[in-house]
């Protein structure tokens, strides 16, 4: 079990498609200053910066960690960049946890940032995302992210009996949660019928089943509680930080609809944290597509997820609320920032400080789940309430 790594504070910018002329450097500075303020720290108190950014093709900036350290006034800190596709932000958090737990650093600032929406045309971003899988096979075939997820979702539906109504319910609910979140990209009031009537992107997925391309930044500070000022005492603590990979090619998995790498990561996380899935009281789950939320919940070990979804177990009032932030579907997905914001949400929920939809029943443990590829590189964290 990890016992000495605390969430000290954090902040995020709104996730949306920027049209105001601001740059990713501006968003990074805002998120970092917000995190420092929340923790009661100054820039000089930080001794390590870990930056998450998925692709230099988005930022047009190689070596972004050094650039952003300079931009944020973090002169002389240790700095590195972490990348793992969609899981980049969460893996950067894991790197920060490791640095604090090992004593390599006292106070680590994890910064996720991505201009996924405003720098490139959507088709160009789609073409880049197509290289997130095996670029020599899937990439050269031209198959895009949504199509791969659609094939996986069909395999999941065939095995479990999940329906498009189940998927649509998630698309509606996560957007409803986003309406409580001032930072959300898609705070939409949509109906099941509107999901079903939205344009097909890759059957069975329709536009409202898909998460958006977003711009934004999020930052959190990790530290041993003994290295924090009074303002940052009594905050959420990390209990496990685990990642695991699955076969890169969908066709080489025993079941194309099952997220086996995620299952391995989750099982290890539960073991390290000393908790069971049944003890998790809240989760932020990687819902890049509506069906992927159910696929993820299955792999995370939650019992009978189809029935639980239909019974309302994953609502704010349920036994295990999921994606009260709105998830990727509602809050948005600036890739490098996504996992950092998920961890921020979980920590604030555990502390009772969350700014959006709160869980009816205060959770003791929260799980954060992020992945790159099609659940190819999976990152799981378990946090405990103070």
């Amino acid at each position: 079990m990890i016992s000495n790594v605390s969430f000290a504070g954090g902040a995020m910018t709104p996730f949306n498609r920027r049209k105001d002329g601001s740059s990713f450097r501006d968003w990074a500075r805002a998120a970092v200053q917000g995190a420092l303020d929340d923790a009661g720290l100054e820039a000089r108190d930080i001794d390590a910066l870990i930056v998450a950014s998925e692709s230099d093709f988005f930022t047009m900036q190689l070596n972004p960690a050094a650039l952003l350290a300079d931009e944020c006034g973090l002169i002389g800190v240790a700095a590195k960049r972490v990348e793992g596709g969609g899981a980049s932000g969460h893996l950067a958090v894991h790197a920060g946890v490791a640095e604090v737990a090992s004593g390599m650093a006292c106070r680590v600032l994890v910064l996720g940032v991505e201009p996924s929406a405003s720098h490139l045309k959507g088709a160009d971003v789609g073409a880049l995302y197509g290289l997130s899988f095996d670029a020599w096979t899937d990439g050269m075939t031209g198959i895009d992210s949504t199509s791969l997820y659609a094939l996986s979702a069909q395999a999941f539906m065939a095995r479990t009996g999940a329906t498009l109504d189940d998927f649509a319910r998630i698309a509606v609910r996560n957007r409803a949660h986003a309406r409580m979140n001032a930072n959300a990209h898609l705070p939409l009031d949509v109906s099941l019928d509107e999901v079903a009537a939205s344009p097909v992107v890759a059957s069975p997925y329709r536009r409202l089943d898909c998460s958006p391309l977003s711009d934004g930044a999020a930052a959190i500070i990790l530290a041993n509680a003994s290295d924090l000022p009074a303002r940052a005492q009594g905050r959420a603590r990390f209990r496990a930080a685990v990642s695991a990979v699955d076969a890169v090619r969908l066709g080489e998995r025993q079941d194309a609809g099952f997220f086996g790498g995620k299952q391995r990561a989750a099982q290890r996380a539960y073991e390290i944290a000393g908790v069971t899935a049944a003890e998790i009281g809240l989760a932020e789950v990687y819902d890049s597509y509506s069906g992927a939320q159910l696929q993820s919940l299955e792999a995370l070990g939650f019992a009978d997820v189809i029935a639980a979804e239909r019974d309302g177990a994953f609502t704010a009032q349920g036994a295990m609320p999921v994606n009260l932030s709105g998830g990727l579907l509602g809050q948005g997905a600036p890739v490098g920032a996504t996992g950092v914001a998920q961890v921020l949400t979980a920590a604030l929920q555990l502390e009772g400080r969350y700014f959006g939809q709160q869980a009816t029943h205060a959770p003791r443990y929260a799980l954060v789940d992020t992945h790159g590829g099609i659940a190819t590189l999976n990152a799981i964290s378990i946090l405990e309430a103070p």
Partner: protein
Amino acid sequence: MKYQMTLDYTIPFGDLQPYFDALRDGQALASKCDSCGIVAFPARTNCASCRDASMQWTPLTGTAHVLFRTDANGGSYALVKFDGADTTSTVALKNPENNTTIGTLVAPIGDAPGLWLTLIDTENEEHDGH
């Protein structure tokens, strides 16, 4: 500001070059594990099942059965099982207007060495065969 950059890659395929050479000709060349016998298509340089790195090339007929397909804005794709392979493959469908579930590998369309499948009319195939 507006900024445009054109990148012109040259990508060697290393030990997988024979697979891509065959693909360019519309031939399915799989890898077979010397240790456990698993046949992988697309080919691999090590076995996904037992992790042995000793592989042999083995040609397939190129015929495949569609397990799942998706019709997208930019094209139609499928998860298919090639006859003789133990793994499944994701392919682009050359003639998605055909709703049959059997196809054959064809040479890639365009410069990229992707996997393309032409769906075949199975009723005619069976009729012709009898």
